[in-house]
């Protein structure tokens, strides 16, 4: 968007896009706003349930291991930190893909999209492992084996909300990976070359960053507090 624009341009006067974006990007922004309300509603629902409970399981006790960890090792939040790091790295590669798109650098777009897709799959794989692990410990929708921090019987809402919300987020990540794969195929087929711009990558990037941002909140709510 590097067109010289005079200060007198009447952005809202009609005949042009007031935000200097094409419609798809505008729709993406509004969609993300809408989707943030979906997650907001989930997290607020979680907050009310947790607030009205007498006690709640301690995340340091629940999430305290990682794959191939030595028996009896206590490693609170190590694995989820790795997951989060992977997701944030994938955001970085997404930024690089978008930037390469600005320079119409096809190879750069393809390379960084592949990194992003790998990052997405790695995150989903981690989540799958964590879910399986928790399931083997007896946690699932409707059953919670973990005791509350004060030693009393834990509420099932802990696992109910955990699986529902991280599952909903995981579904978003999965959708994002699919979108990125479609972007990759389109880039490989020179679709964007022919169009002369890589705007679609930007829109996919917006979605991907949003999914990352949501994870920050989900991570905070379930693992940190």
């Amino acid at each position, binding site marked *: *968007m590097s*067109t010289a*624009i005079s200060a007198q341009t*009447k952005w*809202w*006067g*009609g*005949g*042009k*896009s*007031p*935000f*200097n*974006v*094409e*419609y*798809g990007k*505008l*729709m993406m922004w*509004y*969609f993300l*706003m*809408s*989707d943030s*309300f*979906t*997650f*907001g*509603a*989930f997290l607020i*629902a979680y907050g*009310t*349930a947790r607030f*009205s*409970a007498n006690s709640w399981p301690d995340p340091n006790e629940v999430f305290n291991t990682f794959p191939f960890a030595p028996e009896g090792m206590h490693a609170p939040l190590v694995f989820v930190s790795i997951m989060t790091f992977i997701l944030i790295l994938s955001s970085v590669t997404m930024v690089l893909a978008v930037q390469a798109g600005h320079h119409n650098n096809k190879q750069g777009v393809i390379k960084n999209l592949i990194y992003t897709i790998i990052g997405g799959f790695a995150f989903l794989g981690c989540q799958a492992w964590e879910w399986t692990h928790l399931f083997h410990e007896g946690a699932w*929708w*409707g059953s919670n084996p973990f005791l509350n921090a004060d030693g009393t019987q834990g*509420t*099932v*809402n802990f696992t*109910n*909300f955990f699986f*529902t919300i991280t599952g*909903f987020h995981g579904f978003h990540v999965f959708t994002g990976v699919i979108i990125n794969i479609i972007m990759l195929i389109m880039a490989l087929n020179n679709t964007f070359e022919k169009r002369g*711009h890589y*705007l679609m990558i930007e829109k996919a990037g917006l979605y991907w960053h949003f999914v990352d941002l949501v994870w920050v909140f989900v991570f905070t709510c379930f693992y940190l507090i």
Partner: protein
Amino acid sequence: MSNEAILHANMGSAHATHDDHHEHHQETFITKYIFSQDHKTISKQFLITGMVWAVIGGLMSVLFRFQLGFPDDSLPWLEDLLGKWWAAGGHITAQGYYALVTIHGTVLVFFVLTAGLSGTFANLLIPLQIGARDMASPLLNMLSYWFFFIAGIVMLSSIFVETGPFSGGWTAYPPLSALGDTSPGSKTGMDLWIISMALFVVSSLLSGLNYIATVLNMRTKGMSMTRLPLTIWALFFTAVVGVLSFPVLLSGFILLIFDRNFGTSFYLSDIFLSATGTALPNEGGSAILFQHLFWFLGHPEVYIIILPAMGIVSEILSINSRKPIFGYIAMVGSMFAITALSFIVWAHHMFVTGLNPFLGSIFTLFTLLIALPSAIKVFNWLTTLWRGSIRFTPAMLFAIGFVSVFISGGLTGLWLGNSALDIHLHDTYFNIAHFHLVMGVASILAMFAGVYHWFPKMYGRRMNVTLGYIHFWITIIGAYLIFWPMHYEGLAGMPRRYYDYSIWESFKQFSDLNKFISIVVFITFSTQILFLINFFYSIWNGRKETSENPHGATTLEWTTPINPGHGNWVGEIPEVHRWAYDYSKDGKDFIMQTTPIGADEKEEKH
């Protein structure tokens, strides 16, 4: 990339063919009428589907009004028609009654007054009035309709399920909506209900995003935001409200689906089920949580219903008074205020569900604040009419009727919005009277006004005026005769959603009144058939429109050919030079938006 390129990038190759309008591109029946991407066709699809649902939903009210007015009478042919489940022995059964009121509410609120109203007029008017060839994304626009259509099919199919459709009220409160064992309708009927509503949320999201992007991005040259007709402002705010409130409902539904099918207890706690004689293991959930999530959509939803109506009415009142709309900026500002306030008043639906009374007082404050923008709008409509040269066309009558019922229905909102008075009035017929007048009847009247007014644009023909007058007078008188008496019933404490009032000593006194209301319902409903006949007859046989601008209006849709093709304008899209309300200015009856400001003319600043 330049802004020009940005604007036109999205029109793709379709745009190129529109500019070359003489070239007749191949259109089959399917691409033209079924999977059409033309906003005008999609608008008609929404309108006619909405009409089908209005008939179904209206017919349901006729059936349960028969039960309410004549609880002792039976119509044996009803059982032949509807079957034993609904009408054993010609009586509407209790389960049938609850199913009827539930589906009546759902259908009217979502399918008729949301999709039918916004879908019709946003699709028709946004591109035509802002000067665009089509919606930002015609494809998503088409998908939006078809999601709505499938949602309708799923809802319709739930009526034919063995255990009946959902029957726990349109608000779908748990535990009735969460536990299949609580009532017949809570089984498959509820599954279908929730699937249908989820599809509907998708539909409304797709269309809402499209409306927003189109209004912001695709206005023609010179069409600044403050030159937009009020219809567009209204539809824009409606879309914003929808995009921000429906997702919360979706979250609520997702948690409900988990409670129904996956053994969670988000909304359930400490339940003993007498139907099966079991105590349920669910603990820790809260039914009030669902109510919060539901009403966070549910309240903005009523503004999704009323805002387009307000826009349509503003436009029609101004045109048919031959006067500029009074207080244009105040109108936009008050719609903005309504939009903003709509998100912070939801708990006034929950004053008596165990809400903290202190919280109730805050929600009372915000709720009563809505009276301000609403009153501003009402006074602006009245002052627009004041000393105008009024043309009493059917559309104008319906628009004035809207203002009337909006006032009489809105004033009772001040009673209900007060958390103390609500203790007495909640869940009574007073409430039914209030919301049916202020959003139900008002929006339906505005929808009729819009149909009568824009019919020439939609079909290139006129509807019959005499039938329009008959339709209007019976509808408005009927609406008042139906809902006005309900205020008294409600003040006397008559609760809503009861199957038979005649067995209650305290409500027996109303049996004649209920009979009267039911008879008026039958008459008013039959009159709507008159409208349907008028509408469908006129599509093919109405008087042919001969003028491009039959109402002498200023807005852009009347600069298109009488039967505009896909792309709306032949040749260039016109440029706009003034606001939409230059009526009776400088000795001229009206000045089109496309007319440049004259040398010695002062532009209307607002």
